[in-house]
């Protein structure tokens, strides 16, 4: 194996010379992330594939509702120069379209299908990205978007069950009761995702 730090330098050279990289982050000696423009992504992936990053490990999206963007992420791996590369780009959230990469990495076919199912990103070029994969008969917005609330969905979809409370604390010291209440409050505040 070649020296690991020189691999990172090599990778930076491959990408940085040809394309405008908006942000480079060396996470450790085995991982680098690049943020590039949406139009450059396919070219960057082709360049990386020719430079030896022939395995696509992961493809997904991240939702940033405050910026009104989706962030696409591609993770590539080169086993000869062991560095994982994250290639990220931000795309419009209202009309999310990202060209398919199955001509470069055929293994991306099902990842793109899943990404469409969970985020609603369209992948023109992939023949069956619109088919359902995991969620059978799904009738709501793509569920991994941040504005999808699973609690509300399940309240709407399923009838509520009644639970009987069959115990009662008869006499309790006020300090103990206050403690119990705060504990309960704290536990409740952690439920159901981050509070802004």
């Amino acid at each position: 194996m070649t020296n690991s730090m020189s691999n990172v330098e090599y990778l930076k050279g491959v990408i940085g010379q040809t394309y405008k990289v908006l942000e480079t982050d060396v996470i450790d000696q085995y991982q680098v992330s690049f943020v590039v423009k949406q139009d450059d992504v396919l070219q960057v992936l082709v360049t990386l594939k020719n430079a030896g990053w022939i395995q696509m490990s992961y493809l997904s999206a991240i939702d940033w509702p405050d910026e009104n963007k989706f962030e696409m992420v591609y993770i590539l791996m080169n086993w000869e120069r062991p560095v994982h590369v994250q290639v990220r780009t931000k795309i419009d959230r209202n009309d999310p379209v990202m060209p398919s990469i199955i001509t470069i990495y055929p293994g991306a076919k099902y990842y793109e299908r899943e990404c469409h199912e969970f985020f609603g990103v369209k992948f023109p070029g992939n023949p069956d990205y619109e088919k359902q994969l995991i969620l059978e008969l799904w009738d709501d917005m793509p569920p991994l978007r941040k504005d999808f609330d699973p609690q509300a969905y399940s309240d709407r979809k399923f009838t509520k069950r009644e639970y009987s409370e069959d115990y009662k604390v008869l006499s309790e010291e006020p300090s103990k009761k206050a403690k119990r209440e705060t504990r309960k409050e704290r536990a409740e505040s952690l439920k159901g995702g981050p509070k802004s």
Partner: protein
Amino acid sequence: MKQMKLFLGPQHPGMHGNASVHLYVDGDIIKRSFLLPGMLHRGFEKGMERHSWVNNISLIPRVCVVEPDINEMAFAMGTEKLLGIVVPERAHWIRMIILELARLSIHLMAYGGLGGPTGNYTLMYHAHADRNSILDIFEQITGHRVYHQYIVTGGVRKDLPKGIEKDIHTFIDSLESRYEEYRDLGIENPSIVARIKDTIMLPESVVWELGVTGIGMRSAVGKPYDIRKVMPYARYDQVDFEVPTSDYSDARARIDCKLKEVIQSISIIRQCIEKMPLGPVRVPLGRGQSMRWTVPKGYVYSPVESSRGEFGYYMVSNGGTHPWRIGVRGASYPQGLLGIEKYMPGTRLDDAALWVDTMGVCSPEIDR
């Protein structure tokens, strides 16, 4: 002749987990096939966003049912990378013991699973009996048999109990002594060899096309492409082990590599017990407010070598108490979905279960 539609799974002895393979057969040759996932979808990725970082520790082992420890390791390594925590030395070695015991357990289960589609149930009983001994060891170390929640951010939950080294030695010695017996029962057994030799090929071009990792890739490419070797985590760079490879990529070669990995794992566990220093096993995450610890902003991908290949968590934090996004890269995603669609047609119907078995398809990590 008219094509007929058949289902392999979700209720089938040769299927691992609740996934279904739809097969269109002509005679007994598969003409078209695809996997129907979704029966095991539990919404983990959304669930993780809705639980705080510390609560997730009890959620993540459930992602892959038979091999939970790799999830804990990937999660712990990812958060440690974001937080910049340095794990105590002893914790690294304990983690390696746990991970290698888990590898032994899953390899035994997968090798025993070979008995199902080939009709040799003796193999399965033997393998599961030995796996049970590993679960006993896990129970002693962690208190749980299957979902351990033992490898946590900052180290491991508690130190090894006294005298556990003796139990581990007893077990791995007995497993090693039975290694030849296992070979005779499985891949040297003529009735099984007839089913797995020269069939269910996985050539190198297919490996790179699909993105298959792990034993499938190593047996096709013939190079030691193992995360433990090329980008060592924990203390895998300080132990001496080989990565078994092969230059012929049929089903038998893959199972052969799997069995050779068992011997390597046994050797790693021995070295870990020998080299393990004394000391603390965990660094505390925060003062008293561990339920509210926050993780700094960042994007990190933390890969781990599972028994089926590269298994990774893609973690995004926005600096809060909850993860912003966690994506799970299941090791058998490529061969399970695209592989079944493109490369299962052409095999015989009775080899379909063997195909799924020897490619290492694990439906819980596909559905998540």
